[in-house]
């Protein structure tokens, strides 16, 4: 796949915002993509009938864009999961999908595992100032019926992004180093722009020419200096916070006893795994015979130790999941949001994963052409780790 080399290679143009209504201008742009048949359908977050949340919706009739919100401040489902369902078999025409940066990275990661097919998909990445827990957002709306979607872009122009008073961003968002999409056929830039006046539209690679022609866009090389500065500012702050969170967690899990202690409230509901965009095996080992023990076996264990915890296998569940996918974890935090015991699973993956990712010089979701560490090797590597003289 071409055109996935990141923001640098993209060309950009400015879309003027009318009447300070950013959202409307965004919808209008999406509408044009549909009406011109550049895409046949569009996957985009849409307001729930109750008005207190958003859900990704596949839109075929552009009139239904009326309450679409490409900058929805929640992430109920990781769209990479939706994409894997949506692109599992051939279809005619192209689908445009609006994705947050971490959703896009997860989708790219899943392309490598053959779970997502982006051939007929136009990815539309949108800058993300941070998301809230679904419940928090519903509460905000309950308190303030007039809450404008644009309020969530406050501070994005200067890079002074603060959560709404009385709330906090989801923890993974507080420590997210990728507030802008890494790659994507189209990127909608909000950071570093006065979004009441203008939006940045970037296009790269495979659809660049077609887009420019169809919509008479004047795409230019380069990124605005202010945008670069603001991105750097936001990223820097989050990176600092990330180091802090991870260092704290390190103290809590650096020996196995403490690790187990930290996870002791896990009830093994498998939520973390079910919502994870990276965990994709159709035949999951945890649902296989490997983990279906015989009654005698349980009694034997209990006999040997005096008592065993039921359901068991919690440690092995987490360690196995970690060894399977820590190198590909995109840090979207869906696992945290889904955990009934409020366990810091995504930070744990961040902690262990970032070390492993470093070891293999790998950034999940950076480039679809990059092979995941566990499916390739070099002849001459890891001598020390693998203990060979």
């Amino acid at each position, binding site marked *: 796949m071409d055109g996935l080399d990141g923001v640098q290679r993209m060309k950009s143009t400015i879309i003027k915002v009318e009447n300070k209504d950013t959202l409307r201008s965004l919808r209008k742009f999406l509408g044009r993509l549909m009406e011109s048949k550049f895409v046949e359908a569009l996957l985009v977050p849409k307001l729930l009938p109750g008005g207190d949340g958003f859900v990704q919706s596949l839109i075929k009739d552009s009139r239904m864009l009326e309450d679409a919100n490409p900058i929805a401040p929640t992430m109920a489902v990781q769209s990479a999961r939706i994409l894997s369902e949506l692109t599992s078999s051939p279809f005619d025409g192209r689908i445009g999908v609006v994705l947050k940066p971490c959703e896009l990275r997860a989708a790219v990661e899943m392309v490598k595992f053959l779970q997502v097919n982006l051939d007929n998909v136009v990815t539309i990445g949108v800058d993300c100032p941070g998301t809230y827990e679904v419940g928090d957002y519903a509460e905000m709306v309950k308190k303030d019926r007039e809450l404008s979607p644009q309020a969530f872009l406050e501070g994005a122009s200067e890079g002074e992004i603060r959560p709404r008073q009385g709330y906090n961003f989801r923890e993974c968002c507080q420590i997210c180093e990728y507030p802008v999409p890494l790659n994507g056929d189209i990127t909608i830039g909000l950071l570093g722009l006065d979004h009441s006046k203008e939006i940045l539209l970037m296009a790269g690679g495979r659809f660049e020419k077609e887009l420019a022609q169809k919509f008479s866009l004047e795409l230019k090389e380069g990124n605005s200096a202010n945008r670069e500065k603001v991105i750097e500012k936001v990223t820097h702050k989050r990176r600092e916070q990330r180091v802090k969170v991870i260092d704290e967690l390190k103290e809590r899990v650096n020996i196995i006893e403490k690790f187990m202690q930290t996870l002791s409230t896990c009830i093994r509901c498998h939520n973390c795994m079910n919502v994870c965009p990276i965990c994709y095996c159709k035949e999951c080992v945890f649902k296989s015979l490997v983990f279906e023990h015989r009654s005698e076996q349980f009694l034997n264990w209990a006999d040997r130790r005096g008592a065993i915890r039921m359901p068991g296998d919690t440690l092995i569940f987490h360690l196995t999941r970690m060894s399977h996918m820590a190198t590909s974890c995109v840090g979207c935090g869906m696992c945290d949001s889904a955990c009934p015991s409020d366990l810091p699973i995504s930070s744990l993956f961040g902690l262990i994963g970032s070390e492993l990712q470093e070891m*293999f010089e790998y950034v999940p979701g950076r480039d679809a052409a990059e092979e995941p560490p566990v499916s390739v090797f070099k002849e001459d590597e890891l001598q020390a780790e693998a203990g060979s003289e």
Partner: protein
Amino acid sequence: MNKTVDNWEPKIVAFLCNWCSYAGADLAGVSRLQYPPNLRVIRVPCSGRINPLYIVKALQQGVDGVLVSGCHPGDCHYISGNLVARRKFALLKNFLAYLGIEPERVQFSWVSASEGSRFAALIEKVVDEVKELGPAKKLVKKGL
């Protein structure tokens, strides 16, 4: 070392590739080479067949050390199973070390079918190192 309990002998699970290390072990036997009897050998079709889960499970069931041994790089019967295995292994070992599991408890090696004496020496070394560490308790199924 005072960690070593009197008369305690470590239990070590060895996942040996059928095409090389398993044959190497055979050769060591046929050649009547002496090596410590602490191994519980599990024959696998290729070191690439090892799932990290097996290693964790073995430790959890109370073994004191795990050895994975396959064909030398370039000699794998399935071309590159051993090189993929090395990556998976390095990954697992890295984060086990992070959780305080001593690196000597999980070892990876290459032994060919003709290296009977190398096999015996390797086992000697692994057993010595694990003995030094004492019994493994950390991962043993307890509360969790």
